[in-house]
């Protein structure tokens, strides 16, 4: 596009003027780059170096006027990469200067990461930089964030559950404590603290197996959501015979913690069967025996009480957590209204011993709602989660019933940990919507009376469900909702009720006390008659 040097210079001058006023005018940066590429082809290296150095000082002026322009920072990186002798160390000094001016400028932080790579700055040096930044001002989310990236590089230790050397973890805890004792209302340190104590990354393994003979299904619960075939395979054997079944999820999603396979071998046979499930990982296989004439059997991984859900909170050793809890409780005494302290105390208690701390935890949640009413729904959901977890923690290993009625639940979580349950009672809570209940493949009786449900979308393909009670909810269009459970092609006017076939064993449906019952359409009559039948 450029014809001669005069043209280049004139163009550079005009675009420079425009860009210092409006650095987001991206086409003009492109124009300059094209010009420089042209110059690069026509002049000696020294001259190019001089031209590019001039560009860098122009860019520094631009950044002083507008330090938050994507275009300017990107162009600076481009110039460095295209000049004969880039001085990346000088760029680090520039970053220091700009971060001095605004320590949250993420454009500059991003540019710094490019510079660090090009200038071969070590993670140790950068970690020290964040330490200095944090010590001069604890309230610096950007620095804490950067630390979360650097710490594992410098002090990583994969033999530790936290992925980090323990003495470093403890000294890091001290740094965060310094921060939140200095300004307990600053969220940066609290988010970092939550990360620091870390979650456990568990290996993929079997959590539960459910065999239902009449339905001919094998249901396998995994430790985390997995895309089968892409990441692993589940092998299934009946006796000595390897089957090669197709695995599906209850709701058709490509990734799930619960996988189902349909097999005739089960339903065509009433003999004793040994069924072996094995993951294509190092996890040992599990064998369950389905006795003759038995219709179902399940296996559940066993946990020490209080440890079933701990991996979601912390991987740190108990003495570290106990020390943290003591310190946090001191801070709580000083700052009884501080929500971050309350929330952290709750997490620590849950990581240490969720069952014995249950009442205290709930008191703290109530306090949280009082001091931070804007996030009431979040805290109520958190409380529901704890209630469900505690109920699942304390159930006997062979229990097939879970009673979560009258608990004030606002959300249902961990349905995938209820695969083997036969009776689930969720009545008289405050549930407004449900997650997909497809995990509940073993449930025969499901009670949701007295909630605030307005749709039936969640009841999809519950293959064992015999009795569903959803009295006293807000279901207005139960019929259409249930119809939606089937694919459109299955709906014909006379056989609308066939929609319920998605739950093929459902014979009792209790609907009293829903707005839908006031509409006396034929279909509703039929649904009611289903109810009367039993």
């Amino acid at each position, binding site marked *: 596009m450029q014809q001669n040097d005069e043209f280049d210079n004139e163009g550079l001058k005009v675009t420079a003027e425009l860009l210092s006023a*409006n650095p*987001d*005018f*991206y*086409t003009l*940066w*492109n124009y300059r*780059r094209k010009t420089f590429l042209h110059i690069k082809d026509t002049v000696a290296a020294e001259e190019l170096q001089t031209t590019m150095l001039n560009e860098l000082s122009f860019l520094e002026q631009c950044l002083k006027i507008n330090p938050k322009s*994507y275009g300017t920072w*990107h162009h600076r990186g*481009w110039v460095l990469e295209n000049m004969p002798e880039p001085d990346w160390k000088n760029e680090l000094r520039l970053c220091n200067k700009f971060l001095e001016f605004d320590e*949250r400028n*993420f454009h500059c*932080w*991003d540019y710094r*990461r490019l510079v660090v790579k090009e200038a071969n700055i070590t993670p140790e040096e950068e970690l020290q930089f964040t330490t200095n930044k944090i*010590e001069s001002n604890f*309230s610096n*989310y*950007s620095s804490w*964030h*950067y630390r*979360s*990236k650097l710490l594992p590089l410098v002090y990583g230790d994969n033999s530790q559950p936290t992925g980090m050397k323990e003495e470093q973890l403890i*000294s890091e805890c*001290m*740094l965060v404590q*310094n921060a939140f*004792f*200095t*300004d*307990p*209302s*600053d*969220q*940066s340190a609290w*988010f*970092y603290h*939550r*990360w620091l104590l870390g979650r456990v990354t568990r290996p993929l393994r079997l959590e539960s197996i459910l065999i239902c003979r009449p339905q001919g299904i094998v249901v396998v619960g995994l430790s985390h*959501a997995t895309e089968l075939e892409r990441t692993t395979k589940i092998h299934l054997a009946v006796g000595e015979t390897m089957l090669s079944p197709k695995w599906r999820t209850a709701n058709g*999603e*490509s*990734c*799930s913690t619960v996988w189902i396979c349909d097999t005739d071998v089960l339903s065509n046979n009433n003999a004793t069967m040994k069924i072996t499930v094995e993951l294509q990982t190092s996890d040992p296989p599990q064998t369950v025996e389905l006795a003759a004439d038995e219709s179902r059997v399940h296996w559940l991984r066993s946990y020490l009480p209080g440890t079933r859900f701990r991996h*979601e909170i912390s991987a740190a050793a108990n003495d570290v957590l106990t020390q943290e809890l003591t310190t946090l409780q*001191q801070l709580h005494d*000083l*700052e009884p209204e501080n929500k971050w302290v309350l929330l952290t105390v709750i997490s620590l208690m849950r990581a240490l011993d969720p069952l014995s701390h249950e009442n205290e935890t709930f008191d703290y949640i109530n306090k949280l709602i009082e001091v931070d*009413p*804007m*996030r009431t*729904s*979040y805290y109520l*959901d958190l409380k529901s989660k704890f209630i469900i977890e505690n109920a699942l923690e304390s159930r006997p290993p062979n229990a097939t019933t879970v009673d979560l009625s009258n608990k004030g639940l606002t959300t249902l979580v961990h349905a995938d940990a209820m695969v083997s349950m036969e009776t689930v009672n969720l009545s008289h809570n405050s549930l407004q*919507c*449900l*997650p*997909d209940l497809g995990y509940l493949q073993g449930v025969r009786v499901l009670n949701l009376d007295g909630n605030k449900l307005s749709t039936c979308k969640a009841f999809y393909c519950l293959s064992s469900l015999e009795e569903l009670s959803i009295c006293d909810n807000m279901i207005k269009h139960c019929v259409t909702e249930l119809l939606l459970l089937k694919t*459109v092609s299955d709906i014909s006017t006379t056989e609308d009720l066939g929609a319920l076939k998605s739950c093929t064993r459902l014979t009792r449906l209790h609907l009293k006390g829903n707005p839908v019952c006031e509409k006396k359409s034929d279909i509703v009559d039929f649904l009611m008659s289903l109810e009367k039948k039993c």
Partner: protein
Amino acid sequence: MFRRPLYMLDPEPATSAAPIKDVTIPDTAPNTLLMDKHISYIAAYGDKKDDYEYCLTEYLRMSGIYWGLTAMDLMHALDKMQRDEVLDFVKKCQHECGGISASIGHDPHLLYTLSAIQAFLTLHTVPPWSSSIVLDHRSDHYHVLCLYDAMDTIDVDRVVKYTAGLQQDDGSFFGDKWGEVDTRFSFCAVACLSLLNRLDAIDTEKAVDFVLSCMNFDGGFGSRPGSESHSGQIYCCIGMLSILEKLHHVNVDMLGWWLCERQLPSGGLNGRPEKLPDVCYSWWVLASLKVIGKLHWIDKKKLIHFILASQDDETGGIADRPGDIVDPFHTLFGVAGLSLLGYEDIKTVNPVYCMPEYIIRRLDVQPQILS
């Protein structure tokens, strides 16, 4: 290594605590939706072509058009926009390479390519102009029809080729040929191709891997691996994962908590910790929360109050925060935010595409939404 702060020895509350950055909403601020005023504001915006402000924003004109069209559609006033003029403009902005620029004579870029696709699908899917198209909501052919209709405006195959050509070996996307990488561009590429029903043109698995490599300790996402979480980037990454049905990679509890902590006492939301509230974040944060099924974790009433207070009751339009100067960008995201919050009289907006839900349905595009 670090000395214990004095605070441990002295039970006085810390005095060094920085006050929360926030705004106060004046009592005189508007508290109802001034829909008619916003409609006139947007309708008039395109007429002031000689205005200094209009010229100054030429470099993002295409996005401006999409913001205006979408805001108007959500407010039931799309018929007040100049359909033919817009389509002609979009056509003139497509380049030989297939990419679309912000304005005539500007360079092509993914940001404006997506805006252009959003604008032309809005104009081609919607009554009153699409009466020539059979509006059978269930028809699988609708998508095809609507694209064929648009063919005379944009060369779709070239758009696809341009977009796919910007994908890199690590799965990331350049914004244009000059090599800037950003998860915003991953969203632009995936959103654009999904609207054109051409996701097969890129390596979606690698695209997902790249976005996941930008995930952070707080559950959020940044622009590149190592970058700090920012609500705008989170929206892009969540949206992209939603379109590709990979939301199971997201730590919903952690991210949902971080996002609902963006709400400040004024009711407004900020984009990251310790920043001022801004109406456009009512969109980035809210839409992300909606997609991960946690919209109820913020205080809806207070946020509605904040957005309404950011209206200009004289000129119409919505600003970034109460008392500031309005612009079409914040007007759209204010209106779209109100739509997600269930504000009456506004059409339902799709949280992933920020386009009216009925258009997304007719295109038969189904991004994943968690419940």
